[in-house]
C-alpha cells in the first residue's frame, strides 16, 4: 500500500492508530483518581509528543542513516519557530504560511551550515554544527535584537503584538493560531464515566503532519537514496571508488533533516505563538540526540518512541513531589516511609534528569539498539519460549 511493503505498511498503520487514539491511550486513569497524575493525554503534552517525534524522525535521517552526529539541530528548530511567528506578525494567524515558511527558511539555513560543516566528518563535524548552533543562539539572543533591527526580540522572545500589521487578519478570525478559522486551541472534551478525554485541533494537525512525515521517512529509508546514505556510514572509501560522491548525499540528508526540524519548530510556534532563543540552545540539540539514541538510531520507529519517552519523563516525573511519595509509601511504617521518600526524593521533581540519565546509561550499555532493540529481544524471547514449549510437546507425544 502507498508504495510500501507489507511490514512497513503495518508499521505505518500501527503508528496511525496510536497517534489518532492517543487521547484515549494516554489517559488510562480516571480523572481525579490518585493515578491521574500519570495521565499524559492533555493537549499541551500530546502536541509536544508528536512535534518532538517529527524533530527526532528528521534527525534520524541524518544520524541514523549517515552516522553524521549533528550537535546543532536545535538551530533549525529555532529558525523554524522565528519564521512562523514572523508570518503571524506580518500576514495572519493562519498556520499554513507560517509552517511553509519555517520549512523553507530551515532548509536554506541547513544548506548553509551543512555546506560548511560537512567538509569534516566525525567529531569535527559535531563540533562545527555545535559552534554554528551556539552562534545562532547568540545571534537570536542579542545580536539580532536591537532597536534598529529587531528580528528576534532578544530574551523576551518573539511574539505577536496588537500593533503588528497582520494584513490578512479579519475580526471574524480567532485571535490565536488557526487553520482557516479553526483555532489550534479549541478542544472537545469527552467525558465517559469517571474518565475525561481531550480532542484538540492543534494536536490532530500535528499528528496528521507527523504521520505524513513518518511515511516520507519510510520512503526515504527504503529508497536508493536511503541505501546510499547507509553506504556513506558504512564505507566512504568504497563509495568514492565506486564512482559516487558522498558529499552531495550527506548534504541532502542534512538539509532534509534540517527541514524536519524547521517544520517541528514551526509547529511549536503554531501551537503557542512565541519563539525564544533558548529553543536554539545546545541542550535542545542534545535532547534530540538523546531521543534518537534512546529509541534506537537508524530504526524507523525508534526516534518517535524516544521522543515520547523523554517528553513523558520531563512532564510527568518532574511533577511528582514529596507529598505524592508519602502517599505511595504510606502503607509502610513511619520510619521506613520517611527513609523511602528520602531515597527516592532525588530522582523525582526537579531531579527527573537523574532518572533519565540512569535510564539512558542502562539503555546504551545493555541495549545499544535502544528501546527498539529491547522490544525485539522481548519479542524473540517470547517467540522462542513459545517454540520451546511447542517442541517439548511434540517430543512428548511419541512417548505416549
Amino acid at each position: 500500500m502507498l508504495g510500501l511493503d507489507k511490514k512497513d505498511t503495518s508499521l505505518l498503520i500501527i503508528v496511525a492508530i496510536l497517534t489518532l487514539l492517543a487521547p484515549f491511550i494516554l489517559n488510562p486513569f480516571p480523572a481525579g483518581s490518585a493515578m491521574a497524575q500519570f495521565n499524559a493525554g492533555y493537549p499541551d503534552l500530546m502536541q509536544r509528543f508528536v512535534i518532538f517525534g517529527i524533530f527526532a524522525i528528521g534527525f534520524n535521517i541524518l544520524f541514523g542513516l549517515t552516522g553524521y552526529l549533528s550537535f546543532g539541530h536545535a538551530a533549525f528548530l529555532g529558525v523554524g519557530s522565528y519564521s512562523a511567528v514572523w508570518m503571524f506578525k506580518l500576514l495572519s494567524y493562519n498556520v499554513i504560511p507560517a509552517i511553509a515558511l519555517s520549512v523553507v527558511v530551515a532548509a536554506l539555513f541547513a544548506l548553509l551550515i551543512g555546506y560548511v560543516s560537512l567538509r569534516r566528518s566525525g567529531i569535527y563535524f559535531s563540533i562545527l554544527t555545535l559552534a554554528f548552533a551556539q552562534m545562532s543562539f547568540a545571534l537570536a539572543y542579542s545580536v539580532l535584537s536591537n532597536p534598529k533591527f529587531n528580528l528576534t526580540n532578544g530574551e523576551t522572545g518573539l511574539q505577536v503584538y496588537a500593533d503588528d500589521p497582520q494584513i490578512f487578519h479579519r475580526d471574524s478570525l480567532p485571535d490565536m493560531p488557526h487553520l482557516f478559522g479553526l483555532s489550534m486551541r479549541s478542544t472537545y472534551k469527552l467525558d465517559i464515566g469517571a474518565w475525561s478525554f481531550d480532542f484538540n485541533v492543534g494536536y490532530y494537525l500535528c499528528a496528521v503532519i507527523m504521520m505524513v512525515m513518518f511515511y516520507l521517512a519510510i520512503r526515504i529509508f527504503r529508497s536508493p537514496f536511503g541505501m546510499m546514505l547507509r553506504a556513506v556510514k558504512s564505507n566512504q572509501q568504497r563509495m568514492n571508488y565506486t564512482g559516487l560522491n558522498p558529499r552531495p548525499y550527506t548534504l541532502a540528508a542534512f538539509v532534509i533533516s534540517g527541514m524536519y526540524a524547521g517544520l517541528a519548530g514551526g509547529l511549536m510556534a503554531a501551537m503557542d505563538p512565541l519563539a525564544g532563543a533558548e529553543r536554539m540552545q545546545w541542550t535542545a540539540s542534545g535532547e534530540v540526540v538523546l531521543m534518537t539514541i534512546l529509541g534506537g538510531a537508524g530504526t524507523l520507529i525508534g526516534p518517535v518512541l524516544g521522543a515520547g519517552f523523554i517528553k513523558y519523563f520531563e512532564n510527568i516525573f518532574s511533577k511528582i513531589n514529596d507529598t505524592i511519595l508519602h502517599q505511595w509509601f504510606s502503607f509502610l511504617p513511619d520510619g521506613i516511609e520517611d527513609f523511602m521518600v528520602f531515597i527516592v526524593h532525588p530522582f523525582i521533581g526537579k531531579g527527573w534528569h537523574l532518572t533519565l540519565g540512569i535510564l539512558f546509561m542502562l539503555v546504551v550499555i545493555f541495549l545499544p539498539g535502544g528501546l527498539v532493540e529491547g522490544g525485539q529481544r522481548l519479542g524473540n524471547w517470547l517467540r522462542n519460549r513459545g517454540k520451546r514449549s511447542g517442541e517439548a510437546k511434540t517430543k512428548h507425544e511419541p512417548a505416549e
Partner: protein
Amino acid sequence: MGILEVKNVGKRFGGLQALSDVNLSVAENTVHAIIGPNGAGKSTLLNCLVGKLIPDSGSVMFDGQSVLGRAPYEINQMGISRVFQTPEIFGDLTVLENMMIPCFAKRDGAFELNALPAVSQQKDVVDQAMHMLEEMRMADKRHMHAAAMSRGDKRRLEIGMCLSQEPRLLLLDEPTAGMARADTNNTIDLLKQIKQERDITIAIIEHDMHVVFSLAERITVLAQGTPLVEDTPENIKGHPKVREAYLGESA
C-alpha cells in the same frame, strides 16, 4: 598507444622520492602486472592513477584523457575500478545491496536524489546485481551482512562490485595478500575467467610470483621508485637486473 599512459611521473614525500620518472604503458585488453620489492613505490603509483594522490610531475592519461586533479569518484566514472588490498566493501549492508550500489552508480552517476521509489522497485538494478552475484557464485548469500562473510568471499564480492560497473580498466592491489593457497588459486581462476569473458584491461600489483606468472601478459618491475624493466613473463624470469633487485633476495 595503451589505454593507460603514465609519463615521467614523480612523487616526493618530504625527503623521500617515492616515484621518479615513471613511464608505463598498459595496452588495451591485456593483463599487466607491476611487481617490485617492498617500498618500490607500487602503491604510490597506484594511488596516483586513481586520484588518491596527485603526482608532483608528469602526466597520467586514461583513454586519451588526463586523470590528474580529478576526484576518485570522477576517475571511477571514467572507467577505472579499483580492488583494494584488504577488501573494501559496505560491511553493514547486505551482499545484494553491496552489489546494487555500483549498479546505481553506473546508471545514475555520481549523485542522484532518488529518494521516493523503493529499492526493490528498481527492477533493472536488482536484476543486474543478481546476475553479477550469480556469476560470482554468491547468490545464495545475498541476504547476508557483507561483514559476516569470509575473507575470500569479501574479495570475490569486491571484484564483482567493480565488474558490475563494466570498467575498462580494473586495478588490483595485491588481491591475494594474506590469503590461503586455496583461496589464492580460486582468485587466480576467477580473474582468468573474467579476462576470458569480457573485453577488459587488468593492471595488477602483486607480491606473489605464483599469481603474477599465472596471469600477467606483461610485467613491469619497479625498484626504488623507477621502472627497471618491462617485458613478457618469460623474459622477466631470467632477467639479471630483476634477479638483482627483486628475486635475488630470495634466490
